[in-house]
């Protein structure tokens, strides 16, 4: 499984997001999975990666939260919704765990 965290320095949520990803991996017994960090430095990087905000978490290349087709690409902080409806700069931990669990099961089936 490939887990990537795309981040931009204009948002202070990177560390918190990385911690959340690592905790979710630990919860699922996937401590060995590396989280690859990719800094988005400028508009060119954002265009190249279709970056819609920091942090963006890709699991096997797929965004943890589906992105609307008209979502603006660029350097900004991403808005997530917790399961209770609150706005947050990082994904809901339950969404994170669920996405990682599904990806892990998919990887297991392929073997």
């Amino acid at each position, binding site marked *: 499984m490939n887990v990537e965290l795309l981040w931009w320095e204009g948002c202070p949520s990177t560390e918190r997001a990385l911690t959340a990803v690592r905790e979710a991996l630990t919860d699922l017994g996937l401590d060995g999975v590396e989280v690859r960090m990719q800094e988005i430095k400028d508009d060119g990087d954002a265009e190249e990666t279709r970056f819609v905000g920091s942090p963006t978490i890709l699991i096997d290349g797929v965004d943890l939260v589906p992105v609307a087709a008209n979502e603006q690409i660029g350097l900004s*902080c991403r*808005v*997530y919704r917790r399961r209770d409806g609150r*706005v947050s700069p990082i994904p809901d931990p339950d969404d994170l765990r669920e996405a990682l669990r599904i990806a892990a099961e998919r990887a297991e089936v392929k073997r």
Partner: protein
Amino acid sequence: MSIPIGAEAPDFQLPGADGATWSAFDPGPATPPATVVVFTCNHCPYALAWQDRLADAARDYADRGVRFLAINANDADRYPRDSFDAMKARVAGEDWPMPYLHDSTQEVAHAYGAKVTPDVFVLDSERRLRYRGAPDSDYDDPGQNAQWLREALDAVLGGSEPSRAETKPVGCSIKWKQ
């Protein structure tokens, strides 16, 4: 660089999403005992997460004459979600207990030394800065209820110095024009 604690804050005149023009220090016949200037925006998750707490504080302190002004200074060319039209649409669709002002030239944000959204400035009746920073210690905990802001307001209204005059504002960087 931000205005220092104790210094007089700059006045301004800005258009509001309600169609009126607002000044920092043009409150009418009665001088407000405190004025809260919050730099915020439409697209930042930190600003959005703290919005309800700031709105609640505005409602809770309205009876005591405290004036709240929200200002959006982000570059709307690069961030269309922060355009004046988007601000108007947001105010029309939500319950805002404070005017939402557009700092299109970013001069006010520069004058105050605002850095992020949200960035809170509490001014006393003499227009001097008494608190600057975050609304409270955790955007992710609604139970914090803008505690740092409320403590500062209680101190100013009580005629004393806030015990915590400065905290680190946490949020999205203000999107300056390039």
